[in-house]
Structure formats: structure tokens, C-alpha cells
């Protein structure tokens, strides 16, 4: 969408001077339209013009994708923390367990990996940006960055430290490179001080980054202080 700024009929009083101040450039002005952007625009307009999809269907699909988020994964984790039977099922067959929980994720194949006192799991896709979108929404920019994708498998402890996460040397770091058809979710350890919390309260402690494995959930006192 483009504002028509050639129109000079705006009705505010001219007590300020146009054209002599430097403004921060709009994002659209900082680099030219890329080939991929032209392609996307052309394809989208053609699909709508030819009646293959409607603009509202496209908008609805974007709304659906944006509506998915870490709250979904957090609910699954909180259920696993409170229901040992569900947890066992989740670790044995993540896809089936999450479907039973009530989130449709097929045809995605979900592998849930459990953090323990001796193993800390981290998820990356070194080839692109594979991510459990059904449970966490769209991946953050850093997850797709070349720096994260290359360094997470090469020096995971240094990467975790930059996220503020220090894992003791005796704990095994297990990096999962999501290169093919599986998608991964980390089941973090339930934080200390969370005894007696309800499943809903527990879910509030579970963050996106904890389910990717670059951090660990805070107990209720620390979570409240942040």
C-alpha cells in the first residue's frame, strides 16, 4: 500500500517548514524492491484477479498463521508437567499426543525431547528455518539467521551464553538439527518453586525460547520479577 504524498491538499496550518528536516527513512525507502517481492506481488495479484483465491481467504490464512503461537506449546508442556501419562505419551509419539491434547498438527511429525538433570536439548535447522509452527507460531528472526543456524551446531554453549543461559559442563548438550521431516519441541524441566501451581499457571512460565532450548523456564518468583 502506497500513500499518495504528491497530493498537497492536507489541511493543517503551515507553521512548520517542510523539506528541511531529515527524517528517518521508511523501511520501504532503504532498499529497492527485491525480485522475490515483485514475484510475490505479481503472483498474489494474479491469483486474486483470476479467482483462484480471494483477498479475504489470503488475509484469513495470514491471520490463522499469526494466531498460532507459543501459548499452544506452553499448554502442551504444562500438561506434561502435571500428567505423567500424557508426558510418557508425548515423548513416545509427539504427533499423536498433541493431536489427543486437541491441537491438530498432522501431517507434521513431532519429536518432543526432554530436558533432564543430565541432558539439555537445543533445536536448530541449519539448512533453513524448520520450526514447529503448529505449536510455536512463526520462528523468530534470530532462529532463521545464518549466525544462529551455523553456530548452534558448532559452539552451542557460546550461543546459549549469549542468550543468558549457562549449562553446567557435566550436562550433555544435545543439539537437534531439523534437516528433514521431523519437527522438534523441547520439554523443559519444571522449574523449582512451581509446586502447587495449576496447569494454567504453569503454562504461563513456559516461554517460546525455553521450548527451542535457548533458555530454561523461570520459577514463579523470578518470572514475576521480570
Amino acid at each position, binding site marked *: 500500500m502506497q500513500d499518495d504524498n504528491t497530493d498537497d491538499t492536507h489541511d493543517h496550518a503551515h507553521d512548520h517548514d517542510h523539506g528541511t528536516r531529515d527524517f528517518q527513512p521508511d523501511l520501504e525507502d532503504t532498499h529497492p524492491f527485491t525480485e522475490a517481492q515483485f514475484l510475490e506481488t505479481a503472483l498474489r495479484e494474479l491469483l486474486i484477479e483470476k479467482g483462484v483465491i480471494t483477498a479475504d481467504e489470503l488475509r484469513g490464512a495470514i491471520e490463522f498463521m499469526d494466531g498460532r503461537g507459543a501459548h499452544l506449546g506452553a499448554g502442551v508442556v504444562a500438561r506434561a508437567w502435571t500428567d505423567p501419562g500424557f508426558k510418557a505419551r508425548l515423548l513416545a509419539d509427539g504427533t499423536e499426543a498433541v493431536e489427543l491434547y486437541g491441537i491438530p498438527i498432522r501431517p507434521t511429525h513431532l519429536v518432543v525431547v526432554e530436558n533432564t538433570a543430565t541432558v539439555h536439548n537445543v533445536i536448530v535447522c541449519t539448512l533453513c528455518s524448520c520450526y514447529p509452527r503448529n505449536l510455536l507460531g512463526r520462528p523468530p528472526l534470530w532462529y532463521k539467521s545464518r549466525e544462529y543456524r551455523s553456530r548452534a*551446531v558448532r559452539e552451542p554453549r557460546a550461543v546459549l551464553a549469549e542468550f543468558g543461559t549457562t549449562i553446567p559442563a557435566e550436562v550433555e548438550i544435545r543439539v537437534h*538439527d531439523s534437516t528433514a*521431516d521431523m519437527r522438534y519441541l523441547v520439554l523443559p524441566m519444571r522449574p523449582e518453586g512451581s509446586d502447587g501451581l495449576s496447569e494454567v499457571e504453569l503454562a504461563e512460565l513456559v516461554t517460546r525460547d525455553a521450548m527451542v532450548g535457548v533458555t530454561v523456564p523461570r520459577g514463579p518468583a523470578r518470572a514475576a520479577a521480570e
Partner: protein
Amino acid sequence: MSRFAPGDKVRVIADFTRPGHVRTPWYCRDKAGVIERACGAFANPETLAYAKDGLPKLPLYRVRFAQRELWPDYGGGAGDVVEIEIYEPWLKATEE
């Protein structure tokens, strides 16, 4: 039919020149690891990416590699590992 079972020792083939949409990361080629689990059979991305049907489906495995096998100068814990999904044609049995 899966050729490998969990615990089997495997080595990724030393193919460093295959062109196209290859989903075996460069950094694990010619590296030795252990089958962590068999994931089932999936369409072959190396043909699927070119508008073909990806058939026959290929057995897919999760293979566990010691960090020090992947990066001899790895500076983290001795027990640290990376697990990577690899399609069967990229793996060969090894006794190492």
C-alpha cells in the same frame, strides 16, 4: 524396510559434490555416528524439490554424532552431541 536399527554404527557417505536440493548437511558428510531412531519413510527431497513425486520413499533416521567427531577442536563438554535427520542412501554401515 529400514536397513538400520537404533544403536547401529553408521557413516555418512563422502559425497561432497552432489548438486541440487540436498538435505544432508555438509558438516556431517563422511562423519561417523550412531542411529538414534528410525523415523519412517518419507518422500525423497532431492527429487521432490524438482516437482517430481519423490518416490520411492526413503527410510529416514535420526543419527547421533559426537561433537568431537564433527569438529575435532570442539570446545564444549566431551559428551555433547548433535542429532541429524539423514535419509538412508546417505548412510553406510561401519564397524568403527
